[in-house]
């Protein structure tokens, strides 16, 4: 298939996944802010949201106060914020538009309808809607596109590039989420786990739809160590780093060409580190350091995929 077509499919999937993960984060912080125990200006959660998406500086430049409604508006609707949900869904739709002939009618209609619906939402309208419902809507539009893709698209190379985009973006997003949340949620020096911590960890799990999964897997109280293990090493957990790398590694094997050895090597190496890695070693390295390295490697893998298959990233 055309490299440019593959590029559009890949980015369509990446932007859709990014929009979904952004509202997953927002949803959790929003629900947390409704808890009585965090009454009175809990700004940590909101600044963490900005940090995860590397938006702290851009937010500061916008001159907005660090309040829940301003952060939500900035992250969801701001036209000048290139990773706002609004811009992600616009970019997803533009990429889909450029290759609509490669998509099935249902895929195109789903992407287009999502965009048409969010296009005209103003800050005022957003304030007036039930935020929880809105976040749910974005998540379900993403579910719908993924399901429609799986259920209607020929499982050929084009399909593989859509999936590749999804899992590369998800690996990046899960790692970021874990990094920032983990940092701000580490047990306090006194070693006491307060009930707030329980809710915070519970919220992190919920943001990746893994609260019940955790219970099912560990049948134990929630501990930071196990949360990290579930989201990093558990290959059966669909949003874990290991699961994403399983997919990426498999797809790169399927679509290999004469010039793609480097991308395959990087993915294989990264996959092996998760497949054979141990949590104790990761913690010995330091989780933050380990995740930062992981993000850098995922980033490099993305560049190699672009160079080897897609439209090379401009220098």
């Amino acid at each position: 298939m055309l490299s440019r077509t593959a590029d559009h499919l890949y980015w369509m999937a990446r932007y859709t996944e990014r929009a979904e993960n952004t509202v997953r984060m927002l949803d959790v912080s929003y629900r947390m802010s409704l808890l009585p125990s965090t009454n009175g200006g809990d700004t940590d959660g909101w600044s963490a949201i900005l940090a995860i998406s590397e938006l702290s500086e851009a937010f500061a430049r916008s001159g907005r106060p660090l309040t829940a409604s301003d952060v939500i508006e900035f992250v969801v609707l701001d036209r000048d914020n290139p990773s706002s949900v609004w811009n992600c869904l616009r970019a997803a739709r533009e990429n889909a538009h450029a290759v609509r002939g490669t998509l099935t009618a249902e895929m195109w209609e789903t992407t287009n309808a999502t965009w048409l619906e969010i296009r005209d939402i103003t800050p005022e309208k957003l304030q007036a809607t039930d935020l929880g419902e809105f976040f749910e809507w974005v998540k379900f539009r993403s579910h719908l596109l993924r399901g429609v893709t799986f259920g209607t698209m020929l499982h050929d190379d084009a399909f593989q590039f859509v999936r590749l985009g999804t899992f590369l973006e998800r690996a990046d997003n899960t790692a970021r989420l874990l990094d920032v949340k983990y940092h701000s949620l580490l047990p306090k020096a006194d070693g006491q786990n307060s009930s707030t911590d329980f809710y915070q960890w519970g919220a992190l799990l919920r943001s990746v739809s893994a609260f019940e999964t955790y219970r099912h897997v560990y049948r134990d109280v929630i501990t930071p160590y196990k949360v990290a293990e579930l989201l990093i090493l558990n290959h059966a957990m669909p949003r874990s780093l290991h699961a994403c790398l399983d997919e990426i590694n498999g797809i790169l094997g399927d679509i290999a060409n004469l010039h793609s050895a480097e991308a395959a090597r990087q993915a294989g190496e990264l996959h092996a580190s998760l497949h054979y890695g141990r949590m104790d070693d990761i913690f010995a390295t330091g989780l933050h350091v380990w995740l930062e390295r992981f993000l850098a490697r995922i980033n490099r893998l993305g560049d190699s995929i672009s160079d080897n298959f897609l439209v090379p990233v401009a220098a």
Partner: protein
Amino acid sequence: MSANSTMNAAIPFDEMYAADGSVREHYRPYAEWLAQMPHERIARKRSEADVAFHRVGITFNVYGEEGGKERLIPFDLLPRIIPGTEWTALEAGLRQRVKALNAFLADIYHGQEILRAGRLPADQVLNNAQFRPEMKGVDVPGGLYAMIAGIDLVRAAGADGKGEYYVLEDNLRVPSGVSYLLENRKMMMRLFPDLFSRYNVQPVEHYPDLLLETLRAVAPAGVLNPTAVLLTPGAFNSAYFEHSFLAQQMGVELVEGQDLFVKDDTVYMRTTQGPKRVDVIYRRIDDDFLDPEVFRADSMLGVPGLMAAYRAGRVTLANAVGTGVADDKSIYPYVPEMVRFYLGEEPILNNVPTYMLRKPEDLAYTLAHLPELVVKEVHGAGGYGMLVGPAATKAEIEDFRQLIVAAPEKYIAQPTLSLSTCPTFVDAGIAPRHIDLRPFVLSGGKEIRMVPGGLTRVAMKAGSLVVNSSQGGGTKDTWVVS
């Protein structure tokens, strides 16, 4: 010019109703169906069609419009119905005309017999901006230049009350609109399946297959299993929907200039599996933008080296480079002469009588009769740069007069045809609106083929004669019934 008086008949020919108000025979089953159809149901179907077209994204980008650049082309639910016998005659005329036009193109880029025979003034051709000297002596597969032609037909009331078809213009460069023809049919069958049991409507859905066969038939000699692609200017082009639609329906790659490159006079596309050779390019970009090394150097849409590969016979362009010289409005008056010269036949289809303003006597007549005439720019298209005398204000006419006097050779004039009307759903109910018809004629291999009917365009404004979608025109499903 004796046809003027009849063509200017005050009452236009209506496709559905005869002059005495009775329903024409081929519309009777429809009229009966319509009579027992509740208005609310029609209204509901109209909004259903609107929603569906928006969702599917069958939109049209309009030049010069801010912001919301994607707009729906209004789709009218009342079909334009053509009796099978009428179509058979039209089809023969279209075949003949396109055959002559291709013969003309082959001739002027080779021996130029028609010029030497004095049947057409040489300077009209050789000094025409659309004449491409780069094409002189270049042999193209099958001697075909306009593999895809869109011939615009209009119908006016004849003296005997019968409608008479006229060719308004030939589109031999990159004619568009066929996707609407196909989508309109799909929509009608979805909205009113019961109607199709009352009529034997000839199918059109196989157009993409015909097109693909046409493209493969004109591949460079010796290529056994040719790879065809569709070259688009990109997602912001007004006809992008059609480009992606046709590529998908044919199962060929939709490429932009940046996806192609030329090496050793061979065209390749960049794929995820490395370079792949391209043999036939159905190009939907104008000559000027094809190759920055030969035509416009600032073109970002084309492929450097493409013309060299083309002239070496290593790739086929459909349509060929340089077809514009045959559909130019200054050449149009000579098409009947081409039919006589190349085919030795009398033209089956009528031309609209045309005044060529580079001729002093035609110029004088036109300037004296501006309020009655339609004046068009010779190189204009899409309803831009024209004057519709009867619909224009005095000031507009005077402004246009200055333009004509400044450069008469840039214009032609024609009597204002009272285009036929067809009943159309409007806000106030059903009312007659002017229509035209664009059949798409495919030439590849030995045969000239087309799907029955064509795209019917309709001027949605009462009394308006401008049907172009860029000017707010709409479309109808077109049925050839047997």
